[in-house]
């Protein structure tokens, strides 16, 4: 075959172009650390990396969800632990109150402690995580126990009081005076405070202390003029008075708690087929009677206990089995949270390992082998220089250079 300058030129240029492309490719690999820049460089590695990346993103999202679930469960577990501690105290208070040797002052003090405990329990039920009431179910923005009842400022006198039908009062004719410490639920704002001469609807659970004497039974819901009847704080114990609770007369106690009535699970996805419920609503099966909410039951029990303590030793003792049952529910709930926590922790461990493996595989599939690339680049550079040099020399030489006429 005859080789002409054009043949040499074409071959040289084509070879150098190929070398240049290789150098360009290697240069890109070295500067980006990726073995491919666009899908056509290596379609198979591109699609593998995309699938792996999608799996990694998903894993990271599940991992974030698992962390968030862990925090939720931590907060829930913490609240339950506090409830259990509170319950221990309440049990010992109950045992103490079951003694006949206590004076009524002692009982009042204990009852007040119980009532404080109920407030604390309510606050625990109102525990929030990231702005959500964790025991509220789907009503995540409504406090399960509405804000603590406010105290009635001193100096307010009410001339009449509206009581529901069936309420029995042991005395009539006395002025009702709200004294500091009286509980009104919901708390009236200071501007909406009833002024003297207006009617006031007393919230459920309010205890009215009346002087001993006559008994009045209301035939219907009505505003009853009770001039001079004194409504003191719940625990007022003036000599010679009988404490009568409105609870026993037709009012639903503690209806102000708005805990969910059914399962309202907050479900976190912590794996492709793994979901975990991270909230408690009190309706989970913790051994309570079907259809009842054990958190609700526990909260009510504290209100009943306060009344039972003021009621006497035997009434207090009668509360003990119910309180013990509640303690059982709370500890079962704690173990439910523990079980969920274990699942989440386990899932998180798996997700972390998976993410590490995925990262490693992605690096293997898409990462450039820097050592090989660097060595290859050096080789290519040398070959390119050699091609340039030899090309320049060969092209400039022909037989003409040696003709000396």
């Amino acid at each position, binding site marked *: 075959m005859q080789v002409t300058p054009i043949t040499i030129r074409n071959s040289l240029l*084509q070879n150098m172009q190929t070398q240049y492309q290789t150098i360009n490719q290697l240069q890109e690999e070295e500067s980006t650390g990726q073995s491919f820049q666009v*899908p056509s460089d*290596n379609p198979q590695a*591109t699609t593998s990396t995309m*699938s792996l990346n999608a799996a990694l993103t998903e894993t990271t*999202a599940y991992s974030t969800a698992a962390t968030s679930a862990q925090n939720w469960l931590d907060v829930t577990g913490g609240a339950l632990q506090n409830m259990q501690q509170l319950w221990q105290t309440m049990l010992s208070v109950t045992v103490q109150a079951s003694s006949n040797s206590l004076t009524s002052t002692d009982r009042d003090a204990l009852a007040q402690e119980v009532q404080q405990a109920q407030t604390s329990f309510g606050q625990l039920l109102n525990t929030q995580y990231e702005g959500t009431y964790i025991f509220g179910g789907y009503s995540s*923005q409504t406090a399960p126990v509405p804000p603590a009842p406010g105290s009635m400022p001193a100096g307010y006198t009410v001339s009449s009081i509206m009581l529901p039908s069936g309420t029995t009062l042991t005395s009539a004719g006395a002025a009702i005076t709200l004294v500091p410490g009286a509980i009104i639920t919901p708390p009236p704002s200071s501007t909406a405070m009833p002024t003297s001469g207006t009617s006031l609807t007393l919230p459920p659970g309010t205890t009215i202390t009346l002087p001993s004497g006559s008994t009045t039974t209301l035939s219907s819901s009505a505003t009853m003029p009770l001039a001079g009847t004194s409504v003191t704080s719940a625990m007022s114990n003036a000599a010679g008075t009988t404490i009568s609770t409105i609870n026993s007369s037709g009012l639903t106690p503690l209806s102000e708690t708005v805990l969910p009535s059914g399962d*309202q699970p907050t479900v976190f*996805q912590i794996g492709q087929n793994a979901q975990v419920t991270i909230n408690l609503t009190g309706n989970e099966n913790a051994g309570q009677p079907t259809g009842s909410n054990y958190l609700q039951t526990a909260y009510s029990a504290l209100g009943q206990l306060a009344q039972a303590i003021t009621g006497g030793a035997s009434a207090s003792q009668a509360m003990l089995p119910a309180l013990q049952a509640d303690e059982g529910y709370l500890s079962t709930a704690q173990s439910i949270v523990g079980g969920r926590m274990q699942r989440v922790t386990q899932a998180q461990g798996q997700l972390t390992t998976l993410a590490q493996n995925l990262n490693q595989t992605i690096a293997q599939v898409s990462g450039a082998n820097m050592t090989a690339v660097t060595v290859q680049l050096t080789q290519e550079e040398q070959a390119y220089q050699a091609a340039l040099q030899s090309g320049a020399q060969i092209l400039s030489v022909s*037989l003409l250079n040696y003709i000396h006429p």
Partner: protein
Amino acid sequence: MSFMILNIAGRSLSAQQLAMEVTGNNLANSTTTGYQNETANLVETPPIPSSQLDGSLQGQGVSVDAITRASNAFLSRSVRTQQGSTGYWDSLNTSLSQIQNVFQEPSSSGLSEAMSAFFNSWLTLSQTPSSLSARQAVVDQGQSLASTFNSMSSQITGEIQNINQSVVNTVQKVNTLTTQIAKLNSQITTVTGSGGSADTLLDQRGTLMNQLSKLVNISYTVSPDQSVNIYLGSNALVVNQTAHSLVTSAPTTAYGVDAVSFHDNPGQVLTSSTGLQNGELAGLLTAGNQTLPGYLGSLNDLASSLAQAVNTQQESGYTLNSATKGAAFFTSSSSTTAPVTASTIEVSPLMTSQNVAAASSPNAPGDGSNALAIANQIGSPEMSPTTGSLDTTTTGVTFSQYFTNLVGQVGNDGQQASNQYTSAQATLSSLQNAQESATGVDVNEQSANLIQEQQSYQAAAQLVSVEQSTMVSLLAAVS
């Protein structure tokens, strides 16, 4: 003694002079594109009967019979056929390598990432369904996903428009070349008809035919009068001195490039079935009518199915703390009733963070189960890999798998075009080298010829000198 020797020397001098001129011309054109090596054919001048020896013939020296141009019809055809193939893969490779950047995956700004981010924002929302910021994040990620779709779509459409411009330019180039070839046909016929040599014109026409063969696949026949007839499939591009021009007309498909047909036969659109199988023009039409619109179609299917799946789920849920069902999340920017495509997809202008339907139950701000159902769409089969329509059965693939397949296809097409182009280029190069070897100028060969010719010339000159000195001694002897 006669002056015959001077005649022989004179012929030799002029023949060698001419041969040196031809060699010089070859050397001068050794790098001229399309130049074909010429040779001065030296032949012995017909001998005449010897005046001294009865019955013997005596040589009369050398003369140039003709100057012939090296040619190899077979290699010329092979090169031109290969030019067409190289041109086809060249234009396809160029178009596809540009589109690779549109599908630059994996990338933090790519569609794959945008889809993941969108569905992950729903997952986050499912955990904090009442959080307005989580809701806003869903809307924002939806907008980012929609705009990624929009920009990819507009980049592909833009690329199709670029290809269209190239189609128009290529058609103009083809027309220019065929007109020039028709003109050269006419000149060549005139020159050869008058008995002259049309070598230079033939070289020029050959170069133009090479250029033309790169643009479209041609076949040709050479007439005895050296004019050439060129055909594209079964249609003639050049017949003797007439060129048949190509024209472009409005595209025949929704997303495509202009249709190309013969001016004389506008009804027959040029495709691979009507003869246009190779060359840059065929490559551009393949890219602009099939490959790129195919990608755009897949992207539209993805956008439409994704919007449909999200909308259906969103419409079955409830908006924040209300008993109102959700409204469509993705809508078309062209009109509310138009189908959603990659170019028109947008988050409904009515979509506020409150209107995101995260809950499956009414009036349940803490319920994120509907958001979870949407978030889980990323991992479940949603689309048919073949038809691109919604398919939630086991034959379906996930949105990201569908897109990954599309990127794989784009990558494979690009790689194939690139590989084919490289190998076509290598084949063309070797064919061109073979042609160059057969018809090109070898400087060394010509240099050797030059030395030979120079020496022959010197020998002939010496002959004159010998004759002269012989004559001088003869004249001296007789004077």
